[in-house]
């Protein structure tokens, strides 16, 4: 008996080693699996997203606009879209799944003429029924696939009273009140395949989205990457790229590394400090001004920012030029007011805050804070559009310290920021986020009395905005909003810092990309060469 033991022991040891070796092989196989034959027209993007959102239509927005830009717009489409075909102009409203529309004179009825011959990528036909199916899913609490999360991203649907099918390729939306941005805001109300929803439900959509977009979802590795392949049967211009992969690389230095090592072809929010060395190494860098404000939102209901003089002091205390020029190497422009120069509502006359620390000190003293103030500021470490948040906030921290504004920085992530703001007791006096103001309908959570997460409230501002929301004339509407911007700027509701130019860097083999004056990108002309 006893000498059987060690033999067995040795055999077991060998078996163990063999298992380990086999595991290694399997793992290696896994890592290499799926790539198969070399895909030539493949673009790999290093994004600053830290995590992948749920892939269900509206929920993609939980990863911010970057989620829509790099995931949502590839797979899904709305009735309208942001038209970014002209790189010299801000994005306008363009036709998408609706090829045209009629608006009733009272502005309450929109009739959309749908594209014909559009199918979802699972073969289901896109028609009026599909539109109604989806809108019901978003709005009707009794719909089997209703998901309360989605409607929170589709504020525009709050204006919709009813949707009616006219014929197979025509639907009519009836609004409960006039809304000037209805067409503009429909751009991200995505349509998912009813067949797929019926079969797999919302959960299925979240895992395997089925839309009408130019690309088809292929696979994802949670926490790492997501891939799309070309939709060969796309109803519009079939893209040149066979495949787009988006890698999640939240760390800016790691993005640069990935680009340099050839792991990715394209990086979002390239680190400005790396531009020189990247250019020298033959990489292309792009950037274009667009409507993107990077600011600190001040908690205006609480001390010390309930005093306008303190808010103004903040705006006089910072050296925006140094940040834009020295820190960001011109990949951003200084922001002296609420509206970005690329915005439709920009007026140069509103640039009222220059760098004047003495004045800032004076204002603080006037407000009774001659000893300075201590504040805590939450900021987003990485994610959609946050630029080089840490470095910028630390620079601001140092600048503000010179006028005795002592800042404690509290880093959070993208979704953590909103979770905290939602909970209400952040313990912060200000938050640092960046967003686009091109969608005035969604300014509510930032700027509207009562609903602003930062407590901002200016009745005059709200009046101008609500008027604008129902003003259909473009020029008149722009005038109202410009005025609103001027009010908010005088109020010093935020501390305005810079406007982004969305710096990107890409390898020389990426062809056909022209950066629009927008947050949005059209991948249709992009190819690898």
């Amino acid at each position, binding site marked *: 008996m006893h000498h059987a033991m060690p033999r067995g*022991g040795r055999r077991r*040891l060998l078996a163990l080693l063999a298992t380990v070796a086999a595991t290694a092989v399997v793992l290696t196989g896994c*890592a290499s699996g799926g*790539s198969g034959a070399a895909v030539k027209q493949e673009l790999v993007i290093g994004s600053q997203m*830290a995590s992948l959102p749920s892939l269900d239509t509206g929920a993609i927005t939980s990863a911010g606009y970057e989620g829509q830009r790099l995931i949502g717009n590839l797979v899904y489409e709305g009735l309208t879209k942001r038209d970014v075909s002209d790189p010299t102009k801000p994005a306008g409203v363009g036709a998408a799944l609706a090829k045209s529309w009629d608006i009733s004179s009272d502005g309450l009825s929109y009739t959309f003429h749908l594209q014909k011959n559009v199918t979802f990528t699972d073969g289901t036909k896109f028609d009026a029924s599909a539109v109604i199916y989806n809108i019901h899913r978003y709005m009707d609490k009794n719909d089997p696939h209703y998901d309360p999360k989605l409607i*929170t991203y589709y504020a525009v649907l709050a204006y919709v009273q009813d949707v009616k099918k006219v014929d197979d390729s025509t639907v009519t939306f009836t609004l409960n009140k006039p809304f000037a941005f209805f067409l503009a805001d429909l751009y991200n109300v995505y349509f998912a395949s009813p067949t797929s929803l019926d079969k797999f439900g919302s959960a299925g959509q979240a895992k395997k989205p089925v839309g009408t977009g130019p690309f088809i979802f292929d696979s994802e590795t949670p926490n*790492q990457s997501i891939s799309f392949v070309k939709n060969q049967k796309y109803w519009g211009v079939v893209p040149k790229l066979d495949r787009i*992969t988006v890698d999640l690389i939240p760390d800016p230095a790691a993005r640069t590394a990935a680009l340099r090592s050839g792991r990715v072809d394209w990086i979002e929010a390239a680190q400005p400090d790396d531009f020189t060395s990247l250019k020298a190494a033959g990489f292309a860098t792009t950037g274009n001004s667009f409507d993107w404000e990077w600011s600190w939102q001040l908690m205006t209901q609480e001390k010390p920012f309930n005093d306008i003089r303190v808010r103004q002091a903040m705006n006089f205390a910072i050296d925006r030029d140094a940040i834009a020029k020295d820190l960001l190497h011109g990949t951003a422009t200084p922001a002296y007011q609420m509206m970005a120069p690329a915005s439709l509502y920009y007026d140069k006359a509103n640039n009222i805050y220059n760098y004047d620390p003495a004045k800032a000190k004076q204002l603080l003293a006037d407000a009774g804070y001659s000893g300075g103030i201590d504040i805590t500021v939450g900021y987003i470490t990485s994610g959609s559009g946050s630029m080089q948040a840490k470095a910028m906030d630390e620079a601001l921290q140092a600048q503000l310290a010179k006028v005795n504004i002592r800042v404690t920085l509290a880093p959070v992530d993208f979704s953590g920021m909103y979770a905290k703001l939602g909970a209400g007791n952040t313990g912060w006096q200000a938050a640092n986020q960046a967003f686009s103001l091109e969608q005035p309908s969604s300014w509510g959570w930032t700027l509207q009395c009562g609903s602003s997460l930062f407590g901002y409230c200016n009745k005059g501002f709200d009046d101008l905005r609500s008027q604008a929301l129902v003003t259909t004339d473009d020029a008149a509407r722009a005038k109202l909003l410009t005025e609103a911007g001027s009010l908010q700027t005088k109020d010093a509701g935020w501390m305005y810092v810079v406007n982004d130019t969305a710096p990107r860097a890409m390898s020389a083999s990426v062809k056909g990309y022209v950066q629009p004056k927008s947050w949005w990108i059209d991948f249709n002309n992009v190819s690898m060469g």
Partner: protein
Amino acid sequence: MRHNRLVRFIGSRLLLTVITAFFVSMIVFFAVRAVPGDPALNVLGLQSTAADREALRRVMGLDQPLIVQFFNWLGHAITGDFGYSYSQGRPVASVIGPALGNTLLLGLAASILAVIIGLAMGNAATSRWRGLRRTTDWIEAVFLSAPQYTVALILLICFAVLLPLFPAGGVSTRGNGSVTDIGSHLLLPAVALALAPGAQMARSLKTSISTLQATELLPSLRARGLSPLRITVHAHHNALPPMVTVLGIQVGTMLGGALFVENIFSIPGLGALVVQSVALRDYTLIQAVSLLIAVIFIVVLLLADLLNALLDPRIRVGQL
């Protein structure tokens, strides 16, 4: 009789492992639960009403006493259900899977390297040449105390930035999953992880061999006229059980080091996932990954003990 002894040993060791794992999961759960925050809000988002959140909290069992919540969580975790990661928008289990594979791959590479380093340095440290011994002592001192992330950064800067011999990150090149490609990606991070464990194993080997020298075993073997090769085999056979134990313990060091090293080399493994979920403040994910890492470590320690029981006849059938 002898079998019984081994079975008893394995049984008691398994029991101990289960108990340890239980307390470990307790620490993980309560440490993370002590962080303020409302999971319901994380799930429902900003626009949700207080009533909705309250309802969800009931559904999620958050209204129950903490200890009940703990056992619920543990019960689910045992069945592989680690809850829902709001930052990733999917069940935690589906996030962990691929990360686990990468970490195991890296860990395996680092362990193999550590064994090689340990054997080489251990033998150098007991060599007959004083110069070699002293040099090895110095190298060992450096390896033992150099934090893994500093090694990782130095390697990265030297061999991926200044002298781009190796890729700066990732697990494999796009469209290339060959062993050499994965190897070239994993080499630098694996070296960064393997130095300290390797030096620890070398130290263990050195101690074993000098202990054998001090007792009468090695002199006796020499007195039997055995060839150096046979003596080396004897010595290493005797040194193996403690080395296995050291390797088991060092896996903990590697798992800890992986937190930073995976980050530095952009390897999407468990370590990077922990750091990321800390940055995202995704507590469900932190709980799950921390528990997983701790459990991996406990299991490795168990395996090391069991392996020792097979390797060492004194444990296998003996008085211990």
